[in-house]
């Protein structure tokens, strides 16, 4: 009935010009609302996704770096002013290599972004502060980080070399008993 009234010429003439301008506004507003709401929803979903990914990334990075620190003696970062090697571990023995901290410019991780999906990621600079295990290991390190056991042996042997290398062969001493 109301629809018929709106659509009849007679009834329309009884309305003011403002009344005429309002016709169809509801539909427009509904369409507008739907668009805005859809946009907001998409933004919300995107935000949730980004937040989740960020947390997963961080966890994955910490997990990877923890693996790094427990399975390998590799520190992974260097070059950031916040992460310079602490003085003392190197300057105590001037002229000797830095035996406690040689870190990487960057580290490459496979980061979980979704169930079963990973993307390669490169962690640099301040990431070392987020996860200190990214930049420091519990073991002495040398440049070649591919073989942690070798690094430790090299570190040990360097000290033996300094200590009594000149008598090892003449006295027939056993090789350095590195761990």
């Amino acid at each position, binding site marked *: 009935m109301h629809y018929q009234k709106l659509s009849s010429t007679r009834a329309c003439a*009884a309305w003011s010009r*403002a*009344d005429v301008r*309002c016709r169809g*506004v*509801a539909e427009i*507003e*509904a369409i*507008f*609302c739907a668009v*805005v*709401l859809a946009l907001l929803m998409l933004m*919300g979903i995107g*935000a*949730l996704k980004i*937040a989740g990914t960020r*947390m997963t990334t*961080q966890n994955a990075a*910490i997990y990877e770096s*923890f693996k790094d*620190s*427990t399975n390998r003696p590799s520190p992974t970062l260097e070059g950031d002013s*916040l992460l310079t090697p*602490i*003085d*003392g*571990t190197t300057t*105590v*023995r001037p002229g000797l290599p830095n035996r*406690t901290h040689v870190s990487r410019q960057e580290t490459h991780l496979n980061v979980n972004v979704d169930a079963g999906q990973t993307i390669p990621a490169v962690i640099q600079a*301040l990431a070392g*502060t*987020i*996860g*200190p*295990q990214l930049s*420091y*290991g*519990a*073991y*002495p390190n040398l440049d070649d980080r591919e073989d942690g056991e070798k690094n430790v042996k090299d*570190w*040990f042997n360097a*000290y*033996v070399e*300094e*200590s*009594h290398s*000149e*008598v*090892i062969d*003449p*006295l*027939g*001493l*056993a*090789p*350095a*008993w590195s*761990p």
Partner: protein
Amino acid sequence: MKSQQRRASDSRCGGGEVWAFFAGRLRCGARAVHRDERGAIGFLVLFIMFALLGLMAMVWNTGDLATKRQQIQNAADADAHAAEIWTARTANLLSATNMLICENGSAEAIYRSVKPTADSIGNELINERNRANRALTRIANQRASANLFGYPSAAYKGLVLDLKERCLQEVLRSLPLQQSILNEFIARTSPALMTTQADDFAQRRDQMFQYQVEIHRITPEVVNEQRAAMADFYKVQLTHALPKTPGSDSGDPTVNAPVKRIGGTDAVDIEQPLGQDEELNHPGVTVEKVNVAGYDVFGGTWGGILCPPLRRYFYDRNWRDIGQGRSDSLYEILKRIDDERDRLALVMDAICADPGGVPAALAGAYPQARQEIGVMGFDDRNYPGFGPLLPGQSRGGYTTGHMATGTYVNIVYSFRDQILGDLGRRPIFMMATYDRYNVPDWAKSGVYNSAKNYVYNDIYSREWFRLAEIKWQELWRARNPVGNPSMDTRRWTAQDFADWATALAWAQPIAQQGCTMIAEQAAQEWIDRKWPYEMKPPITEVPPTQGFSQEERHTYFTLITGAKTNETYKPRLATLSGIKGAPMVALTQAEVFNWMEFNGGYGASDRYDVWAPPEPWRLSTIGGWNWNSRLTTFVSPAENDAGKLTAEALSEAIQNNPQLQQMLESVGITGNDADALSKVIQH
């Protein structure tokens, strides 16, 4: 009709008086609005938009708080992990440099032994050559003499002298060869003696020790620097707490590696000079003597320990340096001298072997000649420097009667113990768990039996033969009242052998009884006293493996980090989030751990009832540089025992550290409310 009424009503709206005009307009406007349906959807949309935006803001706010909470937990985790990484690294470095110091000390022991060894062996060879020449002269004189003392007939005597002469000529042929091997030893070692001075070793050890001191000194500074960097990055405050170490209002307790000096106290005070006999020299159990049937059976001292973990590594290392580490060791050179002397023994055996077909009256000449040449000690089976071999005895390993290697090993051992004493008097670092503990109850009977057997076996042979010698001399004096020969210079006759057998039979039960009494006394004191262990002995039986106790973890290895935001957060969905306007606080518990803790190869499976003296667990040495950091999980105290213990550690940390207390109080947590604490602990 309705339209006419509306217009009539509207016409009334144009009244004459001012107040009536405005009142009328208001009434008319309200009625018009009330009647007008235009723009209704617009209001609805505005309202919905407003509500949705508000809702989204609250959701955003809650998400933001969740992110912040994650972030502050990350800050606490990162800081705790970082601090423990540094302490683990320091422990690893100190442990590794301890081993390096041991390697240096072992090298010094070998170095210092070289010249005395060469001198001693050289003198022995000269001495043997002189003895052999004198013996040949004596044989010539005996041939010229008609005296048959000790020989049944002239033919018998002549045969013995002939055999001895041939043996001595073999000795004189062998000695230059032995000397040439010794010259090789001297040539091999002379570069070391020329390039290095004896004091150089100690000087290098001092350098390593200074390195240790410096590493240890800077560790708390590094931990604090890192904490400051992280606090700046995360925009939070970070505090450290140790369960067993009190902090103060002005600062946190010092976080450092779980080490202390040998012989030191629980406090890590590396500047404190170390006393000469502080705990390093664990005196053994001494039982001087017991009297059995009027004869003294002498005991001795057992179980004296110099710094067990380090000593074990040092001894092991020295053992390898002596000869196990490489095929061209000095030991192998000297072993060639001993091999030559073994060959000499075989040659003399062959010379003195009964060829068969010898008249019965002369048959005894062959073993007698071998016996008489044997006691002169030219061959290693009878080398007097380490005592003659007795029936049933064998020489194996390094502490043998072999002249060259035995001399070398004994001299090295002498310097080794001297240097170990020197190491002990220096403040070398050791793990803090090193302390004195009683043998646990479950192990006492095993340790008692082990100790008893150990002491008994160690002294039985010695005392048996000492008593037998006393008895033999008594028997000899009964036959020859004017003489009083020693065992070394005795002239063996058939009667001497008979007396010796009698003396052995007499002495055996006395020695057994006396040694048992001594062994029981020593063993009893052994289990009654405290022993140095790296880790606290477990109260229950441990095999096959055993790690640290929870108490030790909390005492030495646990760190708790508290993080607090600088700002106050007030979530809009307060009723849902349960957090009402306050700073955020997060707690993390971390520990350094030794991943060889359960590895039997590193001493984790050492038992108390297998070896004597009791074996201390040895993470301080080889396993001592396998420390690393890990985060530990807070478990509800109600969940299990581990939960109770972690809760205890947290409780103690809160009680002992005012900084952490204040941090928790700022978010309304006082005391040790487990439920409240669980709100600030995410894992």
